[in-house]
């Protein structure tokens, strides 16, 4: 059963949404014929509010809020089992990537806010230093989710095994890494402009 977030009366379909997803992902979502092979093999399907094949259906039907508001897009681990098995050759994992990016661009609260928060902290560290370091990553995530003690015992064990280091490595040409971030942001801005124009 697909549960739609907007339950009062009928949900309006946004047919431009399907085109937007197809253009951004480069995947032909319209080709999906609902065999649900993706869902059968999805390791996270039991925890998702709507199954992967239903996410594809929502895109086809232009149900923007249902697709972008689904917990499914944040529970997807990009294991790519669906992508490997789709008989219609749709790279579902890539479509999920696109839906995540669109959900964040929309500014609405995501269904699993801790996941994009983790990604943002992760990328913030990469932007500043060029490399990741698990200790500040976990510490920052723990503080931001107001649950710093969740994995403290585990962290201690890992620290004692020499698996965590407080001294972070740094890329020498961190300026070049910063330019990669700016390059991606410029892309995003020009795309947003184009999409706004298309909607007018």
């Amino acid at each position: 059963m697909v549960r739609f977030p907007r339950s009062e009366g009928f949900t309006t379909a946004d047919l431009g949404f399907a085109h937007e997803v197809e253009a951004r992902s480069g995947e032909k979502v319209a080709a999906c014929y609902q065999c649900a092979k993706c869902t059968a093999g999805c390791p996270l399907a039991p925890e998702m509010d709507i199954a992967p094949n239903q996410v594809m259906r929502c895109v086809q039907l232009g149900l923007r809020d249902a697709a972008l508001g689904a917990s499914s897009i944040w529970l997807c681990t990009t294991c790519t089992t669906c992508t490997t098995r789709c008989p219609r050759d749709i790279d579902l994992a890539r479509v999920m990537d696109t839906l995540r990016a669109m959900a964040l661009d929309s500014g609405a609260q995501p269904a699993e806010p801790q996941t994009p928060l983790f990604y943002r902290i992760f990328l913030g560290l990469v932007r500043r230093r060029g490399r990741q370091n698990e200790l500040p990553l976990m510490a920052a995530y723990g503080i931001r989710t107001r649950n710093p003690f969740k994995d403290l015992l585990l962290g201690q064990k890992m620290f004692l095994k020499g698996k965590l280091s407080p001294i972070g490595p740094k890329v020498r040409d961190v300026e070049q890494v910063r330019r990669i971030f700016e390059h991606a942001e410029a892309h995003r801005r020009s795309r947003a402009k184009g999409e706004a124009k298309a909607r007018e």
Partner: protein
Amino acid sequence: MRLGYYPGCSLHATAKEFDLSTRTVCDALGLELVEIEDWNCCGATAAHAISDELAVGLAGRNLALAAQQGLDSVLAPCAACFGRLKHAAKALGSGEADLPAGLDARAAAGVRVHNILDALLNLAGLERIREKSVTPIAGLHPAAYYGCLLVRPPEIAEFDDPENPTSMEQILGAAGAQPAEWYHKLECCGASLAVTNTPSAVRLVADILSHAKAAGADCVAVACPMCQTNLDTRQAAAAARLSEELDLPIVYITELLGLAFGIAPRKLGLGRHIVDATRLTQIAFTPAAEAAASGG
């Protein structure tokens, strides 16, 4: 053979033993690893979940640097890094993405990317692994666990069978081990859900480990730091969920090869796991005949 080396962030921290054992084993096999100078994080899952351009840019810079430094092939032992680097090479090659000024996208696209299984199987070869295995690990029954990104999606990984890979079993077999027959070698470990949705990841880890145990495995062999971390650090929670004792050391395939090559466990970082892996040395070197007789 000279091979560019992209360790990735994990191999410098949580997966130090993967770095140590990869370097030692490759050296023994005659693969000369040259670390890419000034490499950066590949962006892992976080970048591609937010922006494809960022994902290609972060991974692509490493390939551009490799090309600049005269390295036309790169070994990326971390399965996630391997996937991201290969994705970037493809996207840059097809022209669907580019790199900021100062980085040569065309040169980056031309760099060949190998995962560790590919390097062991196709660059070193089973024959050389057999030759180097002076202390065969005949007493071990590892469950070969591939996880997702070593073979999937097939268009990116271009390695082994995406539904029933056997390269890891072949490599372990050449080192004398008797890999377990099991059916969870490709199931996802949960990746970063271990942090953001811990119960979901624990469910997946429990499923994988209980099947490894049921198949008679005495350890799980991996080739991905994310898989190793999840199966190792979430094992206690998985055991509690199953009300079952698991006690399965989660070791990198290179650590097991190192043991077979007669390298000291300390040099391989075998003592750095949460579930003790050093005790594997007590059963690893049982003569093959004896191991087979004991029901291997």
